[in-house]
C-alpha cells in the first residue's frame, strides 16, 4: 500500500524512535528526505526547500521530537509550524482607501485567470465591502478578452468600461478612471492582458498604467499549478511594479500549491486571495495555515495532532506507550485509553495518537454506544480481573457475573473479551514488538499498576471509539 501522506511516511521512518528516547542522525536524515520530496512534489522552490530543511533539522533533533511517542507527527508539526510562519501567520487584507475611489490593478502571465478574477474580486468587494465597482477592460490583445469581461460584468450586473481594441490600454485606463469618478463609483478594477515578465514592451505598458491609475492594490494573479518558475515570475513583476498582493488561482485543482510558499518567502508579497472555482463567487481570503496543510498533503491530520496535544497529557500518553512497549495492555489501560479518546471528542482523534495505529483502524465498524457499554462492563470487573484479562477470557462464571453486574447480555461481555484480546495483539504489534516479545509478555501477564478509578460510563458519550 502506498504511503499516502507525509505524516504516514514520517511515521514510518521515525517509528523505531518510539520509546527508545534517542534519536540518531540517520533517522532524522531519513525524515528530512521525506519532507524534501514532499515539498518538491508540492512545487515549493528548491532553494527554499533546502533552507527550510536545514532549519527544521535542527529543531527536529530537539527534545520535543525525541520525547514524543509520535515522533513522525511531531516532525510534521514542526514542518507545519514553520510553513505557516513562512507564509505569514495571518491573512493580509486587500488595500483599499477608507473613502473615495479605490483602484485595483490586475496583472499576471497569460492564462493565469486575470479576467475571471477581475470579475470575482469586484463581486467580492461589492458584497463584503459594499463598494460600487467599475471594471476596466484593458486587454486589447487577446481576441475576445474584452468580450469576456463584458459578459462577466453582465452576469454580475457590474458595469464594464471598454473602448474596443484600437485605443491604447493606457488611454482606456485614463478614461475609465475618469468615467468611474463621473459615475460616482468607488472601486475600479483594471483587467490587463496576460504578459510574460520578460516582455519589456508590455511590462512598460503596465508601469504606465500604474502611473496613470495609481492603484491602491496591485494584484498579481498566479496559477496555483505553477512550478519552480513561480518565484521568477513573481519577483520580476514585483521588481517592475511593486506588487502589493498575490492572488492564487485554480486552487480547486489537485495541486499542492507550493508556489504560494515560494512567492511569499522569496518576494515577501502576501497572498491575499485564492480562486477556488469557475463560478464567480468562488473566491476566498487566503489562510496560511490551510495552505500549509495542503502543501504537506495532510488534510486534517495536523488538526488532530493539535487536538491531541491540547487535550492529552503527554506524560499519560507516554506512560501508556511505555507499557505497550513492555507488552502490557490491561483493561485498566483500555479504560485510560477510552478516557483519552473521549477527551478528544472523536475517534479520529485517536488515530494519530496511538503509535502506528493510524490507517489500520480505518474502515473498522464503530458504534458510539459500544463505548459506554465497554466502560460499564469494565466497571463490573474486579481489580484483579482488570489487571489480568486472561482471568476473564477463560472463565464462563466470571463473564456471567460481569454481565449481570453491568446489565449487559452475556454475549456482549464474551465479545468484549474476544475483541480485547484481538486489540491487545494489534496494539502490541503496532507498538513495535516482535511476536516473540508478545508471547513472552502474554505468558507473563499484566504487571500490577495503580488502578485508576473506573467511572461508570453513564455520562454523555460523545466519543466515537468503536470496534
Amino acid at each position, binding site marked *: 500500500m502506498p504511503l499516502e501522506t507525509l505524516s504516514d511516511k514520517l511515521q514510518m521512518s521515525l517509528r523505531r524512535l518510539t520509546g527508545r528516547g534517542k534519536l540518531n542522525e540517520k533517522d532524522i536524515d531519513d525524515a528530512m528526505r521525506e519532507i524534501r*520530496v514532499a515539498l*518538491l*512534489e*508540492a*512545487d515549493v522552490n*528548491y532553494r527554499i526547500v*533546502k533552507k527550510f530543511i536545514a532549519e527544521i533539522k535542527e529543531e527536529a533533533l530537539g527534545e520535543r521530537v525525541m520525547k514524543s511517542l509520535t515522533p513522525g507527527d511531531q516532525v510534521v508539526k514542526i514542518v507545519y509550524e514553520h510553513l505557516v510562519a513562512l507564509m505569514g501567520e495571518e491573512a493580509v487584507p486587500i488595500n483599499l482607501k477608507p473613502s473615495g475611489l479605490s483602484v485595483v490593478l490586475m496583472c499576471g*502571465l*497569460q*492564462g*493565469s*485567470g486575470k*479576467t*475571471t478574477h477581475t470579475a470575482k474580486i469586484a463581486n467580492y468587494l461589492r458584497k463584503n465591502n459594499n463598494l460600487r465597482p467599475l471594471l476596466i477592460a484593458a486587454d486589447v*490583445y*487577446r*481576441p*475576445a*478578452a474584452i*468580450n*469576456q*469581461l*463584458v*459578459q*462577466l460584468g453582465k*452576469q454580475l450586473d457590474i458595469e464594464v468600461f471598454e473602448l474596443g481594441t484600437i485605443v491604447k490600454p493606457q488611454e482606456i485606463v485614463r478614461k475609465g478612471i475618469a468615467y468611474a469618478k463621473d459615475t460616482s463609483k468607488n472601486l475600479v478594477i483594471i483587467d490587463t492582458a496576460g504578459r*510574460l*515578465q*520578460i516582455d519589456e514592451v508590455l511590462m512598460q505598458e503596465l508601469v504606465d498604467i500604474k502611473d496613470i491609475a495609481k492603484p491602491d492594490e496591485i494584484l498579481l494573479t498566479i*496559477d496555483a*499549478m*505553477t*512550478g*519552480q*518558475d*513561480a518565484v*521568477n*515570475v513573481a519577483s520580476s513583476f514585483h521588481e517592475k511594479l511593486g506588487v502589493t498582493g498575490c492572488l492564487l488561482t*485554480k486552487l*480547486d*485543482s*489537485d*495541486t*499542492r500549491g*507550493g*508556489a504560494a510558499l515560494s512567492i511569499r518567502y522569496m518576494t515577501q508579497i502576501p497572498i491575499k486571495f485564492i480562486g477556488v472555482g*469557475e463560478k464567480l463567487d468562488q473566491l476566498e481570503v487566503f489562510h496560511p495555515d490551510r495552505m500549509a496543510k495542503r502543501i504537506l498533503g495532510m488534510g486534517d491530520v495536523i488538526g488532530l495532532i493539535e487536538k491531541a496535544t491540547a487535550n492529552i497529557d503527554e506524560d499519560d500518553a507516554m506512560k501508556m506507550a511505555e507499557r505497550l512497549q513492555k507488552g502490557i495492555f490491561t483493561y485498566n489501560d483500555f479504560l485510560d485509553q477510552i478516557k483519552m479518546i473521549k477527551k478528544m471528542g472523536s475517534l479520529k482523534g485517536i488515530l494519530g495518537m496511538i503509535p502506528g495505529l493510524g490507517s489500520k483502524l480505518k474502515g473498522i465498524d464503530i458504534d458510539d454506544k459500544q463505548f459506554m457499554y465497554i466502560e460499564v462492563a469494565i466497571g463490573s470487573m474486579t481489580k484483579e480481573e482488570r489487571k489480568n484479562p486472561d482471568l476473564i477470557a477463560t472463565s464462563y462464571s466470571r463473564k456471567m457475573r460481569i454481565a449481570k453486574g453491568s446489565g449487559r447480555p452475556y454475549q456482549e461481555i464474551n465479545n468484549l473479551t474476544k475483541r480485547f484480546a484481538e486489540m491487545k495483539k494489534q496494539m502490541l504489534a503496532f507498538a513495535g514488538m516482535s511476536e516473540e516479545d508478545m508471547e513472552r509478555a502474554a505468558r507473563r501477564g499484566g504487571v500490577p499498576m495503580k488502578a485508576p478509578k473506573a467511572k461508570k460510563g453513564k455520562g454523555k458519550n460523545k466519543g466515537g471509539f468503536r470496534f
Partner: protein
Amino acid sequence: MAFGWLFGRNKKKDEKAKKYQLGMKKTRTGFLGKLKAVLSGYSQITEDLFDDLTDVFIMADIGVETTLNFIDALREDERVEECESAEELQPIIVDKMFDLYLKGEIVNNNLNVQKDGLSVFLFVGVNGVGKTTTIAKIAYRLKNEGKKVLLAAGDTFRAGAVDQLEEWAKRVNVDIVIKKGATDPSSVIFDAVKRAKEGNYDVLLCDTAGRLQNKAGLMAELAKMNKVIEREIPGAPHETLLVIDATTGQNGLSQAEAFNEVTNVTGVILTKLDGTSKGGIVLAIRDKYNLPIKMVGLGEKLDDLEYFDLEDYIMGLFDEEEDE
C-alpha cells in the same frame, strides 16, 4: 549529434532551429547556467555533486520521481565510474536525457492527418493553458498546407471563449461551427462532425473548455464529447492533444494521468515556452505515461508553433551561450 532523422523532418530545419532557439533562449540559459556552474564547481564526482544535479533537474520542473530515478541511474552508470572530472559528466547527462525521452523508440510526433477523409483532433487541458490559441495556430498551419479546416467551438462554458475562437477563425480564414446558447458541448461537437463530413473537410479541430482534472463532472462531459466523435467517425479522434502550459509544475503529471484516463491522449502540446519556464514536466510525462510531445508554442503569433524537436529542446537546455 544528428537526431533529427528520428523525426523525419529536415525541411527548413535551420530556420526552424533558429526560431526555436530564440524562443528557448531564456529557458536554455537558465538551465545551462546552473548545470555548468554545478559541474564546474566540483573537481571530483561526489555525492554532493549528485545532490546539486538533482536540484538543477528539479528546478527545470522535470518531476521529482523522474529526477530521482534519473540521478540514481546516472550515479550507477558505468561511464560515470570512468569519468575523471565532473565536467565529463555533461555529455553523459545529455545522452541519458535523450534515452529518457526516446526509450529506444522512434518517436513520431507528426500530427496524424489522414490521407483520405476527415481527421478529427480533440484539444483538452486545464484552464488557461492556451488551447484556443493553439487551435488557431494549428488551423493556420494546416490551412497553409492546403487542408480544408473546420473549427468546433466546444467551449460553451467560459465567457468569451466562443468569441475568441470565432475571432481566430476570421483571422486564419477558416470555417467554424458555433451553436449559440448551447450548454452541452457534445451537441456542438456532434453538429461540427456532421458539417465536417457533409462539407468534405480534411480536418476538424475541436476546442473544449478548460477543466481541472479533479472535477469528475467535467471530465465525464469530456468523455461524452470523445464518445460522440468515436461514434460518428470510426477511428476518430485521430489526435487527442493535451495542452500543457510550460509554467506547470508537478501537477502536469496529474493532468496527464487524468486526461489520459477519460480520453485516449495521443500527444502533448507544450505552450508558452517563450517564457522563462522550462516545461520540464513533459519529460516526466513522457517517462511516466509514455506520451510524446508533439508541438511547442513559442509565442502569441499564429506561426509561433513548432513541432517538438528533442534535439533542439535538450540541446537548447544545455546550450553554451551566456547572456543573462
